[in-house]
């Protein structure tokens, strides 16, 4: 039986108490995306400043529990200064860590507040761990690995993924803005 210490790792509590990249950016020019967790009312707003295909700045506003807030904070640290492609890779690695291989966490029509499953997906062609996906994609999950324990608390997976859904939306916008290539 998982205990609370599996969920509330020290690093998570640290990001919760001292959230990184908290704030807002003027929008426009920054892109802005909002996500809601319809189950609990948590809200996240992501501001994304792009320079070419690089995320030059990123700020996070909103309110939520320790899991949603720390996940957003760690995510911001992981993707700031990275390219769109690297950010997508990080999302894929995070998705794998949350055992959400089959689900469209990387945007493209995936509503930020989409209902449905809690992550208990059936057999999947991609059974790799988050670390394996990260290695293959050439990105690092870093502190985010601490969120691994959330998988054992299925109702909290949506807390952890809220900001990622929202980031995926913002990246969709950024790609639209960059035009087809």
């Amino acid at each position, binding site marked *: *039986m998982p*205990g*609370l210490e599996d*969920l*509330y790792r020290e690093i998570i*509590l640290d990001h919760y108490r001292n959230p990184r990249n908290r704030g807002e950016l003027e929008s426009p020019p920054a892109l802005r995306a909002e996500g809601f967790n319809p*189950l*609990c*009312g*948590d*809200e996240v707003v992501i501001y994304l400043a792009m320079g070419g295909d690089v995320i030059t700045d990123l700020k996070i506003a909103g*309110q*939520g*529990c*320790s*899991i949603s807030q720390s996940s957003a904070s760690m995510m911001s640290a992981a993707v700031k200064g990275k390219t769109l492609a690297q950010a997508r890779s990080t999302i894929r690695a995070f998705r794998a860590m949350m055992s959400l291989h089959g689900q469209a966490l990387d945007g493209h029509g995936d509503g930020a507040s989409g209902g449905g499953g809690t992550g208990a997906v059936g057999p999947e062609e991609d059974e790799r761990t988050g670390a394996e996906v990260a290695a293959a994609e050439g990105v690092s999950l870093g502190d985010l690995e601490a969120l691994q324990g959330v998988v054992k*608390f299925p109702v*909290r997976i949506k*807390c952890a993924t809220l900001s990622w859904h929202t980031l995926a939306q913002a990246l969709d916008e950024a790609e639209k803005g960059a035009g087809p290539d």
Partner: protein
Amino acid sequence: MALNDFGPPLDVARIKKDFPILDRVVHGKRLVYLDSASSAQKPLPVLDAMQRYYETTHANVHRGVYQIAQEATELYEGARAKVAAFIGAAAPAEVVFTKNATEAVNLVAYTWGRANLGTTDAMVTSEIEHHANFVPWLQLHQEKGTELRFLPLGEDGTLDLDQLDQLLDGAKLLAVTAASNVLGTLPPVRLLADAAHAAGALVLVDGAQYVPHLPTDVREMGADFVAFTGHKMLGPTGIGALWGRRELLESMPPFLTGGEMIRDVRLDGFTTNDVPWKFEAGTPPIAEAVGLGAAVDYLNGLGMSAVRAHEQALTAYAMRALKERYGDDISIHGPPPGSERAGIVSFAYKDVHAHDLSQVLDQAGVCVRAGHHCAKPLMRRLGVTATARASFSVYNDEADVDVLVDAIGQADALFG
């Protein structure tokens, strides 16, 4: 009210034995269920009645000529009569079985509302409504352009009635809760209903959190419609009810259409059945009705005045115990304990998020709700995104509250 009006007080130790789920152990702890406002647990007589029905009597209702079909129909209609008596309805025909309270409100919005409300009309609801008694009216507003007005929340967790008459001026409907599922507020429904009627408006009361916990007389309430739901009153899920004044129900167009609700169908038209069947299209939730009837019997056996006295006292005990232990570290939303508060306590502890708090409480076996409680406009008004909420029923006692109070402090280890 004098003590002897309540009848004998509840023997909670005995009552607990009627609820098998309370024997469960979670995370090595006794299950302490404090989320009855979300959904109540079920006593053995309810479970047995449903099991017995399926084992001995099941057949479709209002159709078969054979013995068990007749018996099933009698059980189904008998349940309706029990529910009608429980809420003081003039006749069983005034009770329409629905899926839940949400469907009951929607029934009125889709039938009476769409037939009677237009661009030049107004509806009044309140800031403390559950989405079930809010979104259907918002939708009507969006579709029909009917103005939607709100009774505001006052400072003390009760409704602010200063503008009541102005708000009701020109209104055709007042849709208001009899008990807030977040704050426990018990608005003065009779007073509101009288004012609404004086202004020419009909009154729909959301009784989802009231009917299970307080003696209910729909005619004394002064309502025209009352919506409530079986699973919050010790009955099964999948059944609720709309009570409506008979002549109103008769004047309304049907809701869902198909079998059961018709009198005659030709290739070019149909006529509807009498009330209440006019609103019960398709095969109804028969076993669930039987279960709800058994739940009503169970509550009557306890006595609703005794139920209310017990829950009111337990709520006061909980609010006192939380404050005594945690002082300013705990903040409790809603009115003070007493006759204007139902057995619902929404609270915040330090700045621990409600999700995190309920996760900690879960480890102690305590079930509380954390979230927006389907009342987002109210949460915005309170300036919070989520609260933790403990709510009480007949099977809770002071020992349950003590477990809750002890467990809250365990959040300090992580979030202190």
